[in-house]
């Protein structure tokens, strides 16, 4: 199974990179942007063929290494 997971900063954590990207988008003429938040995307290909088990495994990976739960949230967005 290939699991896709997105990691983003929690809402109350300052995201200076997102802020600069927002300003730059404003600067090149994109109007009406309220906020930009930058995150990370991972694709993890595992031998596990059971969807539930594979997702549980990736959840564990997120908690142990991929995300720092003090500042980040993770979300599994696809399994195939």
């Amino acid at each position: 199974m290939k699991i896709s997971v997105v990691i983003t900063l929690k809402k109350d954590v300052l995201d200076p990179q997102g802020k600069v990207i927002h300003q730059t988008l404003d600067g090149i003429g994109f109007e009406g942007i309220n906020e930009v938040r930058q995150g990370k995307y991972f694709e993890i290909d595992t031998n596990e063929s059971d969807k539930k088990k594979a997702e549980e495994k990736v959840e564990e990976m997120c908690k142990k290494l991929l995300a720092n739960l003090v500042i980040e949230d993770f979300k599994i967005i696809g399994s195939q």
Partner: protein
Amino acid sequence: MHSSVITFPGSNCDRDMDVALKKFGFKNKMVWHDDTELPKSDLVVLPGGFSYGDYLRCGSMASKSKIMKSVLNFAQGGGKVMGICNGFQILVESGLLPGVLLRNKYLEFICKNVFVKANNKDNSYFKNNKKDVYEFHIAHNEGNYFCSNEQIKEINDNDQIALFYSDENGNVNEQSNPNGSLQNIAGVFNKQKNVLGMMPHPERMIDPALSGEDGSIFFENLINNLK
């Protein structure tokens, strides 16, 4: 006094730390990250640098390396562990210290001398120190200390802040905060105060001809406190 400095792939202040520790009387050993056992140590130092190229998050990979199991056991048994710069990042990623170090507020790598004020002298690192305010060097991209509201309350309640960024006279204010750190925090302890993490580099301030002597004051005092 025996000390150990851990070298991770990408550490680059490990030899400076070795020189500093030896200069002030420690019998220091260098320990490779892939080793599993620590030599007999009164102090373990995680040095500055860019372990694992700062991949994923600074310090995250190094915090899971083989030697860190022994470092965790050593710290949990009351052993003194000090992390400088990337070493501080490794300590927060390992869970030995609370909080995280985010990217600097203005997205710049900062490399300059700063003043820091020791907040708490009731510990082995700053006890009996003749100074309150030190001039140390900082060089980092991710030194912006952050933690949750509950964590900062706990840190303050337990008096775990080790160092604040300050001005020359020890005033802690926004102008003296180089990187956006919460409450001007430059260094923190664990609850028991045997583990210290700080962004500034005392090992860069040990030669009067090159840098000034505030690092010398820190190390001389440290070895006396540990004796």
